[in-house]
């Protein structure tokens, strides 16, 4: 149970104790809230006293009479507004003139409750204001979190984009200054590494484009019946030069009835990423096995490798953006760190699931399970 601190500002002791009594046994709950709210009441007889309390503790709701002995309720409201306090104000007033109503609303009062009021009237007003406050705070928190995530993404992205630039620039400067002499041969390693980094940067940009398309939701899915056998074969063909270079054998046996209604380009992204990872993180002379397994409801795509594998700790966040396994065995392997997060996003768009099993030095198995029919397609009844 969460408690909302409620400040009652009224010069009539009878009203204050009345409200106190009503709030004491009152709680508010909504289906979408994790917990109910109850109320803890604090009294103030004057506006000056109210301001003192507002400055010394966190108040959530203010029930504010306008006609007070010293400063008016509307002045207290103005003060709250100027200080941008995170709370909700409800005016209690016996003669609600239109002028006052407009002034108070302009200054951020949430509602009015006319005096005299019945306990039920007060309760229903309080219920509304508590809900309003909850939603206001929730909205703000979500905005802040959204900003935070975006900011973090940008800072990591700028790091990933600048690193290869810094590396290539550094090598070029070393060459410009002839740091290891005048023979071009002596710079061969630097040239090779520069080219590797440029290639890495290019693949990062390509992955980033894929990801942006996915996230903006702009890309129109071209849904067609496709045979995943074909997609798998195409991906294996694309990766073949790389597999030969790494001395890795890729095995695949087509199966019957591996058709799926999907966007062929997106399926290619899934296969390409999984198979290229399986080759990249393999050992010399290793194997990659690609399996398709349709059943009544789903089609699963399984890609096994006999590679370097991952520890529990490394496994824990590999689907996150820019997460790459960094250790002695992977230091020569380039990648954007976006591939698996793209695969996961795509899989989820199709209402599917992705799993991974891995053992260090033995290998990893990634399984993508896609529902036989798209979940976002209207279900046939």
């Amino acid at each position: 149970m969460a408690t909302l601190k409620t400040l009652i500002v009224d010069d009539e002791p009878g009203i204050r104790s009345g409200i106190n009594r009503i709030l004491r046994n009152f709680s508010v709950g909504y289906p979408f809230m994790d917990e109910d709210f109850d109320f803890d009441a604090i009294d103030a007889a004057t506006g000056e006293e109210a301001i003192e309390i507002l400055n010394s503790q966190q108040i959530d709701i203010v029930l504010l009479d306008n006609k007070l002995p010293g400063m008016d309720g509307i002045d207290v409201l103005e003060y709250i507004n100027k200080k941008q306090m995170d709370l909700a104000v409800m005016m209690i007033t016996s003669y609600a003139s239109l002028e006052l109503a407009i002034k108070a609303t302009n200054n951020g009062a949430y509602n009015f409750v006319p005096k005299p009021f019945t306990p039920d009237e007060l309760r229903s007003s309080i219920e509304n204001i508590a809900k309003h406050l909850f939603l206001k705070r929730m909205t703000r928190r979500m905005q802040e979190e959204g900003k935070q995530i975006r900011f973090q993404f940008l800072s990591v992205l700028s790091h990933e984009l600048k690193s290869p630039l810094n590396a290539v620039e550094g090598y070029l400067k070393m060459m410009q200054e002839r740091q290891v002499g005048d023979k071009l041969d002596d710079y061969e390693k630097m040239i090779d590494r520069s080219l590797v980094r440029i290639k890495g940067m290019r693949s990062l940009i390509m992955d980033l484009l894929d990801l942006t398309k996915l996230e903006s939701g702009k890309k129109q899915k071209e849904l067609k019946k496709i045979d995943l056998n074909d997609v798998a074969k195409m991906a294996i063909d694309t990766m073949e030069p790389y597999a030969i270079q790494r001395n890795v054998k890729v095995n695949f046996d087509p199966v019957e009835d591996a058709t799926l209604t999907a966007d062929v380009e997106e399926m290619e992204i899934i296969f390409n990423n999984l198979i290229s990872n399986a080759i990249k993180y393999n050992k010399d002379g290793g194997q990659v096995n690609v399996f398709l397994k349709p059943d009544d409801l789903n089609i699963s795509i399984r890609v096994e490798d006999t590679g370097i594998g991952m520890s529990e700790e490394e496994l824990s966040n590999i689907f996150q953006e820019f997460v790459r396994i960094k250790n002695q065995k992977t230091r020569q392997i380039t990648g954007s760190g976006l591939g698996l997060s793209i695969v996961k996003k795509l899989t989820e768009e199709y209402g599917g699931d992705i799993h991974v099993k891995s053992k260090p030095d033995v290998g990893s198995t990634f399984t993508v399970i896609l529902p036989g029919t798209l979940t976002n397609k209207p279900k046939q009844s």
Partner: protein
Amino acid sequence: MNSEMKKILLVDDDMDYLFVTKSTIKNMGFEVVTAEGQKEAEEKIKEFRPDLAILDLMMENEDSGFILSYKLKKKYPDVPVIIATSVTAETGYTFDLSAPGEKQWIKADMYMDKGIRKDQLQREIRKLLKL
């Protein structure tokens, strides 16, 4: 340079940046010990005390450089630390060392943009080493 070369610990998870920067700093007349990450660096400082450390910020984690700096300062309070980063300009991240709260735990002596010019880098290193 005198016979006792100052030892600089250089930590970065980018092997190319590490190679290039090591060569640059060596040419300035310093001895350079490298590590490719926070963990490796922690092992290295068990064995020796650097005269100065240049640490990358984002390595195993986004704040590896800060953590390493903290650990290094705990062991060798007098060793100056430079944190190298490439993220300041784009993101508006500021690492204002004047903020006392931050200075208390981050404990770096200087922040350096990775695109820094060689002569600037040399000047900063010499200043921190009081040469």
